[in-house]
C-alpha cells in the first residue's frame, strides 16, 4: 500500500474543556478523492486546520507528506491548495489583485488556469471581491487554489453557495484533477449527492470521533436497510439488533438501517414479531444521514415522532 498523504494518530484537540476532535486515526491515500463528512460541530474544520498546520493538536500527531503538519515549510505549502470554509477573500481587493497577492511565492502559478476558471464563473478581473456574489467568491477561491497546480487539494465545504451549474463544474473539476492518480483531494461537505459522484473514500466524523473510514463502494455495500411492519415497537429488542445504525418510524413502518447485516441481524429483526420485513435499497445519502441522525437523535421538528422511537 502506498504511503498515505495525510495520516493522523490519536489526534485530539480541546477548546477550553471541550474536546472537539478525539483520538482521530485517519489516513488519506494518495491519488483519491476523500470526503470528510459530519454534522456542524463534528470537528471537520478543526481537523482540517490541524492537518494544514494552522492549529496544534492537544495531543496525538498529524503527518502530511510524511512530515509533522506543524512543521510545514513554505515549499511544502506550495504543494497544497487549501480552500478555506466560507470562501474567505479580502473584500477590498479586486479579483486581479487577489491573484497577484495569492500567487506571490508560488513557483508554478498558472495565470491561464486562473483566468479560465474565473471566466467560467463570469467574473470580471477588475471587480472588487466585496461586490461578488457568494458563488462568484467560491469561483475565485477555486481558481486561487487550482492555479498553483497543487499535488494535494484540501477543500473545506467548497460547494457552499454555489448554484447547481457551478456545483457540477466544481465536481467535474475535482474528478479531472484527481483523474491521473497522482493528485489527492480531501474535501469536507454537506452535499451528499455531490460526494457520492466524486469521492472514492468517505470518512464520517461524529462528535469529534471518526466513525467510518472506508471506500465509497464498501460503505454502500455494508450498509443495508429494512422496512419492517410491526404493531408494537419493543425498543429494547430494536436496540439489540446487531450493527443497528438507526431505527426510524415512518407511518406504519419501522425503517432500520444496519451495518454489516448478517444472519444474526435477520434473526434479531424476526424477534420484533413483524408482520412483514422488506429489504430496501438505501441511497448513499440516506445511509450517511442514518449515521449522522443517530448522534443527534433528530426527527421532524414538528415533534410528531417521539425520540423513543429511534435507537
Amino acid at each position, binding site marked *: 500500500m502506498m504511503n498515505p498523504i495525510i495520516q493522523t494518530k490519536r489526534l485530539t*484537540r*480541546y*477548546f*477550553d474543556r471541550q474536546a472537539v476532535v478525539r483520538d482521530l486515526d485517519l489516513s488519506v491515500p494518495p491519488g483519491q478523492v476523500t470526503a470528510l463528512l459530519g454534522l456542524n460541530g463534528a470537528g471537520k*474544520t478543526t481537523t482540517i*486546520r490541524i492537518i*494544514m*498546520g*494552522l*492549529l*496544534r*493538536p*492537544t495531543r496525538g500527531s498529524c503527518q502530511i507528506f510524511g512530515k509533522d503538519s*506543524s512543521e510545514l*515549510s*513554505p*515549499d511544502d*505549502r*506550495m504543494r*497544497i491548495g*487549501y480552500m*478555506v*470554509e*466560507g470562501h*474567505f*477573500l*479580502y473584500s*477590498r*481587493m479586486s479579483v486581479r489583485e487577489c491573484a*497577484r*497577492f*495569492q500567487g*506571490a*511565492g*508560488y513557483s508554478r502559478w498558472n495565470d491561464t488556469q486562473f483566468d479560465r476558471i474565473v471566466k467560467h464563473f463570469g467574473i470580471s478581473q477588475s471587480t472588487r471581491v466585496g461586490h461578488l456574489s457568494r458563488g462568484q467568491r467560491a469561483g475565485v477561491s477555486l481558481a486561487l487554489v487550482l492555479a498553483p497546480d497543487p499535488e494535494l487539494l484540501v477543500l473545506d465545504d467548497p460547494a457552499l453557495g454555489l448554484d447547481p451549474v457551478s456545483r457540477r463544474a466544481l465536481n467535474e473539476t475535482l474528478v479531472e484533477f484527481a483523474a491521473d492518480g497522482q493528485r489527492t483531494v480531501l474535501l469536507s461537505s454537506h452535499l451528499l449527492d455531490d460526494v457520492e459522484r466524486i469521492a472514492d473514500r468517505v470518512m464520517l466524523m461524529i462528535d469529534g470521533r471518526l466513525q467510518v473510514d472506508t471506500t465509497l463502494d464498501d460503505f454502500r455495500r455494508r450498509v443495508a436497510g429494512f422496512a419492517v411492519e410491526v404493531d408494537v415497537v419493543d425498543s429494547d429488542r430494536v436496540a439489540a439488533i446487531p450493527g443497528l445504525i438507526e431505527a426510524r418510524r415512518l407511518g406504519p413502518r419501522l425503517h432500520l438501517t444496519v451495518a454489516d447485516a448478517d444472519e444474526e441481524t435477520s434473526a434479531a429483526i424476526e424477534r420484533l414479531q413483524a408482520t412483514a420485513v422488506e429489504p430496501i435499497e438505501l441511497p448513499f445519502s440516506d445511509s450517511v444521514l442514518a449515521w449522522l441522525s443517530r448522534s443527534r437523535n433528530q426527527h421532524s421538528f414538528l415533534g410528531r415522532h417521539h425520540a423513543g422511537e429511534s435507537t
Partner: protein
Amino acid sequence: MNAIFRKELKDILRWTRLGMIVIGLLCWNQVPDDFMAFYYAFPRYLRQMSVIGSGVFALVLGLLQSMFDLRTDARTFLLHRPISSSDIFRGKLAAGFVAHLLGWGIPMLLVVIYLESIGPEKLPVTWSDALLPALCCLVSFLFHPAAMWMACREARWIGTRCLPLVLAFVAVSTSDLIAQRPFREWGILISIAIVVVTAVVTVAGARHAFTRQTCLPFGESREAWSWSNSIGLTTASIVTFVVVAIFLLGYSNLFRQVGQTSERRLAVAIDGHVWELERTRYPSPVLGVAPTQPSLAGQNLTNQSDGNNRFEDVGQEWRGRPLDVLPAPRWFPPELIERFREFSSTASTKDHSLSLYERNGHLYLYSQYTGWRGTVTPRGIFTPTETPQGRFNNAIALEHCARHTLARGKRIGGQRIFADDSGIYQLDIDE
C-alpha cells in the same frame, strides 16, 4: 513578504490618513501664539503631544493589523501560503512601521518647517528641534508590536492580556527621559540599553504570539514557552506591581528622602564673585517633605586678584541645566544637536516677566502678549528689526544669590545673570 507588506500597507493607509490628521492637530496645537510664546517650551510640548498621539496611533494600527486576522477564516487564508509565518509577521510589522512613520512624521515635519519658515517671530525653532520628539515617536512604535502581542497571546483576563503594553510604555518613558534629562554617559547608555532590550523583547514576543500561540491549545503546550514571553511578561508584571504599589503606598512615602543629598549650582554674590552653591537636602521624618537649606560651599570661583570677570575651571563634572539636550556622543555632528534652551523667565525693571530662549549663541526674548521683543547678545539687546551682532559662547544661566544685582543703582535684581566662556552678564531690560 513583499506581497504581504504591500497588502498590509494598502489596508492601513486609510487609517494612516486619519492618524495624520489627529497627530497633526496635536502638533499644530503646540504652535505657540504670542501669548503662549511667553512661557513656551516647544520641543518638550511637541514631544509630549506627538508621543501620546503616535503611541495611541501605533496601538490602534497594531490592533487593526491583528484583530481582523484572528477570525478563523481570515487567519487561515493569510497563513497558508508559501512563506513562513515569521515573514508574514515581519511584513505586517514593516507595513505598520511605514504607516506609523507617515502618520506622525509628516505632520511633525510640516509644523517644524512652518515654524522655521517664520523664524523667531514665533519661536527660534529649527528642524533639529524635531529630533528629540521624533526619537520618542520612533520608540512609541513599540505599541504596535505590543498591541499585536496583546491580541494574539493567550490570557483569560483583559488586564493580564494588556501586559505587553506595559513594556512599550517602559520603552517610551525611558526614551522620554533620555530626551529631557542631560544624563551622564552611563545614564544614557543604560537608558538606551533599556529601550533596545525592551524593543527586542516586545518584537520577539509579538512574533512568538503571532506565529505560535494562536495555533496552540490554551495553556497546555510546552511550545507556548519562549524567552521573550517569559522575560517580557515577567518584567511587565513587576513594573505593573511596582506602579500599583507606588499608588497604594503613597508617592511621598515611597520617595521620602532617607539620606542627605546635595546638589551644586553656580551663583553670583553681591560683590560680583561667582560662587559654587551647594544645596543640601536633609531627611524630614515628619511630613516627608525635605527642606532646602542652602549653604555656601565657600569656593570662590573668581580670580580675585585679576578682577571680577575671570573664571576658574569648574571641572568636567559640573553641568548646566538646559531644558532640552540631545545626549549625543562627542563625535556626533554638533549642527544636528542645536540646542533650543529655555532659560526660564526673567523680569524687566518694571517687573514684567519675559521668557528667554537660546539658539546659536543668541538669546531670544519674548514677552507676554507682545511676543518677540528682541535678541540678546554680549553686545547688547537688538530689536527684531536689527541684525544681532556677536554671540554667547556656551552660555549658562546662573543662580541669583540673595537676589542682588551686579549693576549698582539700578533695580534689576530680578533679571537673569548669565555666564559664558568670555565673562558674566546680567540683563538690563527696561520695559
